């Protein structure tokens, strides 16, 4: 590793890398489990993606997806892995808010808060 001028910044980047990797590995593991279940249960059915109908309401919201997971639904488990994937970069932004604050880089802490606000808008406000 290079002799960085800001060791605290470098530490933050390493932790950030670990966070991203953990999120992706976790999501892929859940997705793989959902995939096996999905193929075993529905592998013989016909696919139908040529016309857009939208997914059932239960697979479109966090609450609905968690309900499907509790019921052991394969599609719900795959959607849970999608939620973990979406949460990964969001957690990275949350992490950056505190990381920059610890380095007293207040401007960038504020920048990160702004990005988090935009992400939250996209996630929770229905357009």
């Amino acid at each position, binding site marked *: 590793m290079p002799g960085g001028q800001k060791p605290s910044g470098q530490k933050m980047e390493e932790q*950030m890398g670990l966070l991203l990797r953990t999120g992706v590995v976790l999501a892929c593991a859940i997705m793989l489990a959902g995939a096996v279940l999905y193929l075993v249960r529905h592998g*013989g059915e016909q696919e139908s993606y040529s016309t857009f109908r939208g997914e059932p309401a239960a697979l479109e919201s966090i609450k609905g997806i968690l309900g499907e997971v509790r019921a052991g639904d394969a599609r719900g488990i795959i959607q849970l892995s999608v939620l973990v*994937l979406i949460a990964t*970069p969001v957690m990275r932004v949350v992490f950056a808010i505190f990381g920059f604050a610890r380095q007293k880089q207040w401007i960038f802490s504020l920048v990160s808060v702004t990005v988090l606000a935009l992400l939250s808008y996209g996630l929770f406000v229905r357009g």
Partner: protein
Amino acid sequence: MNIAVFCGAVFGGSLAAGFIGSLTGLGGGVVIVPLLTVGFGVNMRYAIGASLVSVIATSSGAAAAYVREGFSNVRVGMTLEMATSAGAIAGAALAARVPTSALAILLGAVLLFSAVVRVHKEQGEEEKPGGGHGLLGGTYPGPHGPIAYESKRAPLGFGIMGIAGLLSGMLGIGSGAIKVLGMDLAMGLPFKVSTTTSNFMIGVTAAASAGIYLHRGYIAPGLAMPVTLGVVAGSFAGARLLAGAKVQTLRTLFRLVIVALGVEMIYSGWKGQV
């Protein structure tokens, strides 16, 4: 087609796209939507949703490595993410109001652009070391210790990132080529910093619109699953093989494939077949 065969075929196609995309540095995400719509007859909206999910996975996976190695500029990335996320939210909102034929033509244009823009370092090209680094400058690991650089024209870079985010939100792609263009050409950041920081930003940009797509029912689990697992596995294998691989010929071939898909998307969009 039954689901097992369909998933296997989509997984195979995505694996190849991820592998060649990461090996050539051109990115596999941009070909996923045409692969699904043209190759498998999938509706454009489902294809965009699935592509977007795979983009988050590959970007976060690759960013994890780059950010630890110290190439990505987290401050530049975070600052520009304000523009890309805002653009992505606007893009996702717009996507529902635009007919799929128009989306297809736009994607075709982006494909053609991705094929011609320079997204890899040319042979024999030297990075020019910059002066001291201001608020958005930084250092990256060079062969003889850290190399300092600065950034310029931040407002122009910010504007280009807004467009990159808009296209990402509308088309379910990472817009890596446009992000690199903004940082490398407009802001004058070193090439390695631009590409890795672009990758770092793609995940957040895609996450900004993914929630909107999820609420609208664009993300079909049975489609997002084989696409994401395929692209992730392919990119991982491609990145492993990258060291020392001679990819010039492959890159030219892949560029031709991207051009062909771009032309096909524009044609189908024009004919209203998507």
